[in-house]
């Protein structure tokens, strides 16, 4: 059995994803995500003894590009859709401390 989805876990995932959820939404999503996981539990019952583990859903491999520069966007284009910019930087609220 997979770990059951309760309302606390939905809130936790919401926080990690920077999504604000109302109590109603938390209840709805807990139920919906629970149903999805239940379906996976059903899949777990299949006999996969002779099936090799799959690390990736796409069977293509080695889609690689040559290390040759191509023009990107101009600074004006790059900043065009930004809600705010400061000189040539994207402007964001003051960040304290460094991330990981």
């Amino acid at each position: 059995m997979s770990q059951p989805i309760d309302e606390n876990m939905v809130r936790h995932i919401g926080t990690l994803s920077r999504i604000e959820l109302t109590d109603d939404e938390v209840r709805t999503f807990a139920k919906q995500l629970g149903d999805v996981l239940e379906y996976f539990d059903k899949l777990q019952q299949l006999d996969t003894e002779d099936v090799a583990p799959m690390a990736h859903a796409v069977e293509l491999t080695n889609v690689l590009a040559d290390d040759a520069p191509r023009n990107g966007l101009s600074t004006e284009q790059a900043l065009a859709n930004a809600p705010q910019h400061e000189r040539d930087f994207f402007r964001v609220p003051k960040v304290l401390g460094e991330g990981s």
Partner: protein
Amino acid sequence: MTRTTNISKVTPVVGLEIHVELATQTKMFCRCINQFGDEPNTHVCPVCMAMPGSLPVMNRQAVAFSIKVGLALGCTVPEYTKWDRKNYYYPDLPKNYQISQYDLPLAAHGVFEIPLESGETKAIRVLRAHLEEDAGKNIHDLPGCTGVDLNRAGVPLLEIVSEPDMNSVEEVLGYARSMQRLVRWLGVSEANMQMGHMRFEPNINLHIEAGGQTYKTPIVEVKNLNSFRALERAVAYEISRQTSEWKADPEGFTLAKLGKQNRGYDDNTEKTVFQREKEEAHDYRYFPDPDLPAVVVDEAWRESIAGDIGELPLARRQRYMDAYRLAFQEADALTMDAATGDLLDAAVAVGAEPKRCVNLLLGRAAAIAKERDCTIADLGIAAGQLAELATMLTDSNINATSAETVLVAVIEDGGSPAEIAEVQGLLQVSDTGRLEVWVDEAIAENPDAVAKAREGDKKVLGFLMGQVMKKSRGAANPGEANKLLKQKLGG
């Protein structure tokens, strides 16, 4: 104080994560230029800015560079490797996830030999090396806001993780410096600290033996150190801090009770500082990136990269000490980069005496390289020029001082050493007739010194020799001139 504070032994246990920016022309998933120091947001495109609908395509060279490092570190390079999304939110990370490698890294389980001050080496195990993308840069000194520059976003970053096999500050620094030398040697990174090409994250704790028991202090990971000095200070500070914290609370300040902690480093105080973190900060929810197909490294690819690696720094240094009879410092100085040793080997291959070449390279040439902040090889001396000059020394056609003058001219203007020596009158004169003129002049002009020399004053003899050399402008063969001078004074 309890009895357990009678410490009989403290062993620091340190593992090191090193991030190395790879010197590819372009970024890891788009073809924007990988270049430090340009105006903000000038090397950006829909992919590295995370525009909806854009798709990353892996840079072949970044993969090849990573495999090269992995093989040089004696790692296993598995046939199948893939990329995963590491999810977290930070303004310099436009996708809100970093593309990294979770369970199937490009390289794993290697060993890196590092030199110790004693002249011995120590084997440090490498747990894994994986290829991920760098984030952009947050600029904090703007008025009332933070600015984001995405030029660095998506630059290929190789993270090399060691096992906790280092037991002193010296070993940590030795490992870090050796890694810098290695990645430069392999040509995969400039490893320039000022440009942020290398960043360190040490994991440090202590094994303390006291009262017949071994205590382990909590493991501290110090984030984001960007200089060797910061690395040295941070590790030294943690060793002393953990020792005193443990003394204050031997039963409480332990790994079992407190687990792992993150600390930052303050450049001004040279101390590590506690970092408050949200509890959920490290729930990264890794999953395979559906946009990036896996990479299969077949034997042919692996072999062709392995064939490119050649002799590594430690092996070459040992060869120089054995085959060329060089002192440790000389061999070490000549193996800071690959090209300088290649130059030496090429000159020796065409018949030059190794020791003569080494003296030439490590004299004025090394000093000029230092002034110019480049390697000796960057000075542009050709192997043929070096061999020619070294052979002139061996054949006594030039003396050591004049050879340095010729070498400087070669560095500055190029040309054949023999021709330069000829034109500048630096060819060594061994011909008795010409030497006699300078010796006679020196004797005639310094009657007092001559008188003293005849009474056996050795110091004055040196002075007279100096006069002869000066008159010849350094061209006199010192051995022959000395013989002649002694003859004349004695006669």
